[in-house]
């Protein structure tokens, strides 16, 4: 152990002295020294690790990954054992003193101190590397692996620090641990974000209040790890829940740290970086501020439920006031066009507006069947709902529409103008158009009807209109021609006496005649008759036979006799 330890320490020393830029380029010498150093460290840690399969770190012929795995194998059980120790010390601070007493061997102390320094140096380098990696915010495994290593180193350092410093540094840390736990419990009741802030604050507290502020970053990380450990120990309840987050993949850490699955675990040092920067920049101021907050937290523990509610309400009010100041969401704004709201955002919102139209009827088979039934029934009944126009009352007589005759006119142009001229000068009654003739006929009929109706009423006597017509009039008694229910009845005949008989001189009846007049009449008659008879015989000279002559003679004789008798 002594010889290799010296070589190992030399190697470590050499590693320390090399300039950082030299690490960038791979060099065989550097790798050799690194291997030697890691071997040395491995063997130095070996007594503390309970179950390491390797006696010493095998480096020859192994690549970085394999060496790493070996280290990992050793470090994990080591970590768990250290944690157990820590728990023990928590529960029983007196044991620490026992430890110290047991470890008062100066040689060991010296060696330890030397190793502590070297460890600090190494951890410094490693810490820087870790920072670089963390700044990249790359894979969590890498980070956690490195954290493990870091924790490994740091915890070793812490342990050895415990042993080395006579209880001064450790006591402070442990006391702080307890305070931290208290604070964390209270913060748990609030939201996670504030807790994290407290944690950051506490980290800073650690960094500031400790006087050994050479490597603030390390201590921050130490504090962070401690916090995590402490939280892990306290939050066993959450550990089961957080167990799902397999991102905290180290098995030893899981039970303790899963409960504290934090943003940083998943998404890197977004919050760590600013917190670190903050700490760098404003170390003292923040420390003082954080102290005050720490004190406030203490006060909040003693608040009554009413005050707690008030505080909640106040917080809500602040939130609402803040949201009021911000511009409203598009749903709260008045008229929003498509350009003013994000794309497809109207689909997500449940819009409700009045539809002025009835929605169109959904045509299903049933609807059509019902319609068809109605139609059939109506057709059978003959009940049609045709809208019929109400008969419009004619306000004025319809204008006579002169139809355009599309046929060739039969009259010549001269005749047309002739008719026109005649009409103008009223020479002759123009042959009226067809419509006018019908009009005349209609008016005639109506007049006749009116005459008859007036006769019935008797109120006003209107004589029949005189129409100069050529018509034959029979000698019918006037009664028939006049009114149906005549006022006066007259025996007068229709024809005037002149029309009946137009004669000259005195006209006497037979009874008025004197005898001489009678005789005269008879004589006239006879003469006429004779004249006629003579005519007849003259007309028929061929037929002049004896018979005719005899007849004629016989007639003459008869006439004479008649005449003689008359006389």
């Amino acid at each position, binding site marked *: 152990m002594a010889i290799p330890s010296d070589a190992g320490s030399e190697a470590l020393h050499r590693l320390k002295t090399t300039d950082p830029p030299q690490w960038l380029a791979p060099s065989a010498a550097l790798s050799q020294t690194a291997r030697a150093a890691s071997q040395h460290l491995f063997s130095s840690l070996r007594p503390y690790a309970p179950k390491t399969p390797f006696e010493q770190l095998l480096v020859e012929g192994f690549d970085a990954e394999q060496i790493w795995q070996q280290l990992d194998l050793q470090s994990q059980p080591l970590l768990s054992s250290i944690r157990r120790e820590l728990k023990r010390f928590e529960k029983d601070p007196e044991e620490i003193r026992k430890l110290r007493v047991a470890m008062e061997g100066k040689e060991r102390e010296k060696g330890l101190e030397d190793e502590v320094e070297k460890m600090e140096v190494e951890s410094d380098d490693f810490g820087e590397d870790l920072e670089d990696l963390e700044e990249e915010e790359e894979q969590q495994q890498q980070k956690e692996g490195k954290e493990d290593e870091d924790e490994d180193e740091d915890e070793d350092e812490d342990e050895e620090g415990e042993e080395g410093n006579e209880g001064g540094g450790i006591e402070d840390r442990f006391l702080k641990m307890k305070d931290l736990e208290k604070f964390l419990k209270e913060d748990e009741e609030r939201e996670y974000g504030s807790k994290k802030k407290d944690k950051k604050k506490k980290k800073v507290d650690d960094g500031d209040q400790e006087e050994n502020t050479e490597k603030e970053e390390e201590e921050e990380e130490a504090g962070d790890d401690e916090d995590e450990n402490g939280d892990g120990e306290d939050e066993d309840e959450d550990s089961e829940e957080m167990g799902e987050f397999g991102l905290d993949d180290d098995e030893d850490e899981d039970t303790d740290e899963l409960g504290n699955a934090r943003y940083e675990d998943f998404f890197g040092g977004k919050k760590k970086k600013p917190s670190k920067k903050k700490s760098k920049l404003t170390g003292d101021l923040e420390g003082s501020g954080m102290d005050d907050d720490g004190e406030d937290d203490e006060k909040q523990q003693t608040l009554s439920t009413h005050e707690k509610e008030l505080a909640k309400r106040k917080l809500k009010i602040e939130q609402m006031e803040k949201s009021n100041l911000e511009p409203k969401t598009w749903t709260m704004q008045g008229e929003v066009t498509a350009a003013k709201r994000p794309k497809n955002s109207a689909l997500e919102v449940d819009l409700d507006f009045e539809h002025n139209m009835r929605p169109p009827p959904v045509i299903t088979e049933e609807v059509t069947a019902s319609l068809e039934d109605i139609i059939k029934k109506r057709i059978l009944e003959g009940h049609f709902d045709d809208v019929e126009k109400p008969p419009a009352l004619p306000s004025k007589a319809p204008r006579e*529409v*002169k139809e*355009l*005759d*599309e*046929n*060739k*006119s039969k009259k*010549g*142009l*001269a*005749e*047309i*103008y*002739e008719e*026109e001229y005649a*009409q*103008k000068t009223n020479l002759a009654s123009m042959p009226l158009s067809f419509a006018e003739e019908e009009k005349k006929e209609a008016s005639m009929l109506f007049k006749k009807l009116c005459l008859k109706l007036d006769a019935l009423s008797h109120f006003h006597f209107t004589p029949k209109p005189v129409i100069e017509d050529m018509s034959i009039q029979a000698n019918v008694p006037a009664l028939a021609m006049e009114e149906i229910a005549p006022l006066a009845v007259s025996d007068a005949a229709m024809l005037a006496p002149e029309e009946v008989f137009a004669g000259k001189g005195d006209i006497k009846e037979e009874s008025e005649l004197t005898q001489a007049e009678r005789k005269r009449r008879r004589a006239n008659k006879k003469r006429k008759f004779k004249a006629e008879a003579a005519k007849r015989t003259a007309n028929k000279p061929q037929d002049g036979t004896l018979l005719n002559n005899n007849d004629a003679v016989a007639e003459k004789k008869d006439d004479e006799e008649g005449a003689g008798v008359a006389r």
Partner: protein
Amino acid sequence: MESNQAPSSMEIEATPSEPNLASGSLLPKPKFEPLKAHEMSDGRVQFRKASVPPHRYSPLKKAWMDIYTPVYEQMKIDIRMNLKARKVELKTRPDIPDVSNLQKCADFVHTFMLGFDVIDAIALLRLDELYVESFEIKDVKTLWGEHLSRAIGRLSGKGGKTKFAIENATKTRIVIADTKIHILGSFANIKVARDSLCSLILGSPAGKVYSKLRAVAARLAERF
């Protein structure tokens, strides 16, 4: 001769009246008898010639007597057909009643040559105020080829019904001879008929023209 006679008769009349007014008053106004148509043209015979287009030759032959009779008998104008020159010649007679007869007859014959019927053209003889107006389609709108044919078709209508409708409504007679249009009638009626024909040429549909015609015809009828 007749002109010489007039002053002599005048002189005879004048001399006996002169000694009555010997006191110095104005001379009595001379009384002239109206001049006869023959005298107006200084006793010379006047002629008119109307050329016969080939497409009116056979209709002229058919309707010759209808033309000849009123011209010769009522208008007292000599009329003859010069077959060689394909012209109808008119000549005045001494016993012509009116100066304007010759011109009327010439117009009548000319109208017949344009394409009008005899019975329509005779109106010219009977009425003074009838005129014939002719114009071409291209005067209204320049049309070529199919457009021209379509315009002519629009003017006449199916079976000539549009043309007859215009004729009947406006009391005119219309002849559509390829691209030339002749209208016979009185002045106002010619105007109306021309307007409707022009609107048809320009492209308005027949129905529109009919409605306008109806309104016009009603107005024209209302006057009388």
